[in-house]
């Protein structure tokens, strides 16, 4: 089973191979945003520090930014989101991934929330 971590900004990070992670937003986040109609993805090769903006998510009603939970370089983006942004509403943690990053500081991953800690955090918001 792949390892997954979360942030208090409702993003998830999943290890797909050594030092490579996928990033997306959680089910809680997509529920809050409502119908997602447009996603501006980062350029491949963009290098980011943790908490830099890497994507913009537009719903009918509002715009939100995705801040990178970790530092690294964008190596792949989910191009399907350009025509089907609704994938993020339908399946935020699988088909609705945003991009893959190669970690530059792998230790940052371990500092993020694990599944139980994130669930507890979300429960505290509701």
């Amino acid at each position: 089973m792949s390892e997954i971590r979360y942030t208090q900004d409702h993003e998830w990070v999943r290890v797909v191979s050594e030092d490579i992670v996928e990033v997306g937003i959680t089910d809680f986040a997509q529920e809050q945003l409502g119908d997602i109609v447009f996603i501006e993805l980062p350029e491949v090769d963009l290098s980011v520090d943790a908490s830099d903006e890497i994507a913009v998510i537009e719903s009918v009603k509002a715009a939100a930014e995705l801040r990178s939970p970790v530092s690294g370089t964008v190596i792949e983006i989910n191009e399907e989101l350009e025509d089907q942004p609704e994938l993020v509403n339908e399946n935020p943690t699988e088909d609705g991934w945003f991009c893959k990053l190669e970690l530059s500081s792998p230790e940052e991953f371990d500092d993020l929330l694990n599944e139980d800690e994130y669930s507890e955090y979300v429960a505290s918001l509701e």
Partner: protein
Amino acid sequence: MSLLVSPLHKIHLDLGAKMGPFTGYSMPIWYPEKIIAEHNHTRTQASLFDISHMGQVSIVGADAASTLEELIPTDFVNLSYKKMHYCCFTNNQGGILDDLIVANLGVEFFVVMNAASKEQDLEYLRKNVATASVEEHSENVLLALQGPKAAEVLARFHPEIADLDFMTIDKFVLNRIPCIISRSGYTGEDGFELSIPVQNADQLARALLAQPEVKPAGLGARDSLRLEAGLRLYGQDMDTTTTPVEAGIHWTISRARRIGGEREGGFPGADVILQQIANGPKKRMVGMRLHTKALARKGTKICLDDGIEIGVVTSGLFAPTVKAPIAMGYIEPSHANVGTVVNIQIRNSMVSAEIVRLPFVKHQYRTIT
């Protein structure tokens, strides 16, 4: 500060609404089907909107019509019984203090005003309407039933409701509940607004929702529907710094109040407004269709190719019926012609947009005469 709740709060929670703060009230933003589905349902069937946050006021007095004309550039002296006007309060600079609906109910003028400005409007009316009494209808709540099936649905409760003309109003009894019902709305569709006693609101809303054509819709869909219909939102598309002429609602200024009319001028800001009608305003509200998938939100700059700023977006969203991002905003009149291509600065990039005719989606109002 704690939020006020609507008399329909329990229904919203029962239906699983996402609630959000709106002008001091906790209101449903969307229900589980979300904005796009609610929007499309309104355009094809009928949707029930809770708009109980809006202000309802009655003005009673022999001179009410002429007193209202001192505050609003519209003809009330000749407003027929059961007819209503969309209009606005103006200030001395010609700016818009609020937009409102004023209906002639015989013994009273029945007024519907924006939630955010209702306290200020009430105070303004009480201060300036000396010869008439101004009463808030806080015992009544407002619901809207909007969509092509709305008339058919309401006719099951009272067949004569279907005979109302667009922008007319009357009193009806539905399920033994006394209602004031107008054929009007904020979606561009055929539809009705119902003013009903607070104590019957839950019962009547549930009875309407039990009709097969009716689903609930929240304020999110109300916003996307009104924007496609080219309807301005006070506080967003217009405020005290914009005149009715600039906002493109100069049609609310009746002929009788214009230059050469029977009761020319005599309202706040008349000099500015009448001069703008004659010579044109310095900025004009336009509709824009974006050539991109990104959305232009309020405050987004409108520019020429060389980067010179010529306007600003006041409302923008993804339009579910148009299936594209649309926006409204103010632009210099020389660039306001339909078909003109302008640039809109979205984040760090310029995207092109075309000036299009308002409304974006044709109105489906029902007029018999």
